[in-house]
């Protein structure tokens, strides 16, 4: 009878791992879904902001100045001369209706270059005007407008060049790529992980405790001579393993697809993290999952059914997500060790620290140890509850 805890764990694993639907929905789907959603979102964002290769943007121009034409070399802008009057009106009409073949209408005054060079603000009078007509609803039109404006800005600057800021291709942002990756991950990961870890627990714990209570199968275990503590520990351990796996699945999906979400930005690279970060992360994740599983188990043992359990757990879930968001926005970040005794807050802060490559290992230790202690107290409480007729056989 001493090995009843192992027997319970084996049963829980069998229940979970031989159920294809369960494995699919709690282990495979979260990671896969996150990967797919983030990747698709990333590709979508990239095509929103970036111009697709090869498609030219059609610009109809009146009086195209030589200098502008030269400056547009190498951009996707393709110019067609307009003779003004009716032809220009026709082009504007096409643009208004979003017709193909014209993304931008640019109207330069005659002899624009001379006028521009001659214009002196001190003399007063209006500066020569360039009119750019576009249609902001059309992506191509917006891009053409942005591009043309940029070219004109550069042209204007070149006319009166007194000084340059950051000239050439030199790298002026002295932050290392490592730092930039780290900053990005440390913002996103804690919040996402708090959500994923909690939803991993929610997927299995209420079902396994409140569900078994509701269906009367836990009472069948309670009539056997098994120790209540064995049942409590067996449940917590097996559920934690499953919840950690589910959390890891989400984590993997996130780490692999976050760079894609950011539209393939060069510096986004999870390889800046070494084995030490991942080990620390594992310590935080495991202790956090133990704590959450225990919390949700206790709530589930009080509840009459799965629905009630899920309802009661929601506030805790919101608090833990809040801690994640606080870590993301860097609100109430503390470095004092005592702060790392606060459950859930400590997990979010630690994850933020680990991913920003700036973590106090002692704070991680305090977090892991205190979470495990809380979980231990929780297991004790759960044992009492399994032994309590008021909880298990109430009417």
């Amino acid at each position, binding site marked *: *009878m001493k*090995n*009843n805890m192992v*027997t319970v764990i084996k*049963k829980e694993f*069998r*229940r979970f791992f031989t*159920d294809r639907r369960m494995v699919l929905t709690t282990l495979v789907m979260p990671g896969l879904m996150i990967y797919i959603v983030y990747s698709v979102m990333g590709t979508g964002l990239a095509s929103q902001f970036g111009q697709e290769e090869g498609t030219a943007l059609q610009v109809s121009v009146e009086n195209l100045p030589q200098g502008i034409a030269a400056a547009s070399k190498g951009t996707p802008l393709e110019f067609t001369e307009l003779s003004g009057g009716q032809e220009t009106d026709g082009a504007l009409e096409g643009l208004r209706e979003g017709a193909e073949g014209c993304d931008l209408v640019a109207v330069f005054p005659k002899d624009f270059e001379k006028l521009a060079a001659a214009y002196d603000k001190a003399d007063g009078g209006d500066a020569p005007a360039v009119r750019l007509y576009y249609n902001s609803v059309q992506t191509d039109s917006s891009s053409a407008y942005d591009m043309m404006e940029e070219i004109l800005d550069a042209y204007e600057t070149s006319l009166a060049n007194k000084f340059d800021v950051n000239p050439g291709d030199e790298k002026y942002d002295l932050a290392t790529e490592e730092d930039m990756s780290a900053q990005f991950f440390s913002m996103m990961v804690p919040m996402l992980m708090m959500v994923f870890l909690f939803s991993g627990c929610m997927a299995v714990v209420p079902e396994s405790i409140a569900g*078994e209570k509701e*269906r*009367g*199968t836990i*009472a*069948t*275990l*309670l*009539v*056997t*001579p*098994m*120790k209540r503590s064995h049942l409590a520990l067996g449940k917590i351990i097996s559920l934690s393993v499953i919840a950690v796996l589910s959390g890891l699945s989400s984590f993997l999906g996130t780490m692999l697809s976050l760079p894609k979400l950011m539209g393939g930005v060069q510096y986004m690279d999870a390889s800046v993290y070494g084995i030490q970060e991942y080990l620390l992360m594992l310590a935080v994740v495991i202790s956090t999952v133990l704590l959450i599983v225990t919390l949700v188990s206790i709530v589930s043992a009080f509840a009459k059914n799965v629905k009630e359990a899920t309802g009661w757990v929601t506030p805790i879930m919101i608090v833990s997500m809040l801690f994640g968001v606080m870590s993301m926005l860097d609100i109430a970040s503390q470095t004092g060790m005592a702060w790392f005794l606060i459950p859930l807050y400590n997990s979010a802060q630690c994850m933020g620290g680990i991913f920003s490559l700036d973590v106090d290992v002692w704070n991680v230790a305090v977090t892991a140890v205190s979470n495990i202690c809380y979980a231990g107290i929780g297991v004790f409480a759960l044992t009492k509850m399994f032994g309590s*007729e008021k909880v298990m*056989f*109430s*009417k």
Partner: protein
Amino acid sequence: MRELLKVQNVKKTFRVSARQQKIQRTKERTKVAVDRLSFTAYEGEVFGLLGPNGAGKTTTLRMMAALISPDEGDILVDGSSVVKSPDEVRAKIGFLTSELKLEEFFTPNYLFDFFSELHGVDKATAARRKQELFGKFNISEYAEMKVANLSTGMKQKVSLVISIVHDPDIIIFDEPTNGLDVLTAKTVTDFLLDLRGRGKTIVVSTHIFSLVEKICDRVGIILDGRMAACDTLENITAEKPLEEKFFDIFAEKAGGTYEK
């Protein structure tokens, strides 16, 4: 004869929840479910606890199975006290009610092994018992089917078998034939008689007179948490059939009328 089960002055009071107050249309905050009840079951006997709904039968059996503990008094199960050593008690008995369910995901085969392990039965013994019990109840055919796919009767048979994986000497059975079709009910009563034949001590609760007449050696009539009469079936039915005797006692205790 050895006194295998001694119920000594047990009392159990429940708090009545607000929800229960509404359902039972009562303002009472507490309910005395079992009120200083005593009786003894002897080795090799079938003891029947007979009483109407709400009399306190289930509560009494749960106390005997050490699932809930008495507020007062004690129950000795083969010498072990439900108050002092509930684990010992649970190891000595097989307890079954229709409220105990099996996890639908698993097969009878797996569940038998699982509960054998929980009871500390060694593998060889468990395998032998499984073959014997599955054969007796015609479960073999369904041994590899998920419980979810079994008929109600088959589920009940599997539950019964699993409650006695450890071959207990004492079997406590709450409403054994409740909700069963006639065929399964017959299998169950036959099995109880078979167990008695093998020297087991059995306590059943029921509100069905014919079941008591068929299988019990000794009867306790429980009304409103109290033992109204307790004797051998023979003595109780000496003058009148069981049913008539029961209503006589009921009328006497309930103040001359049993219109309810």
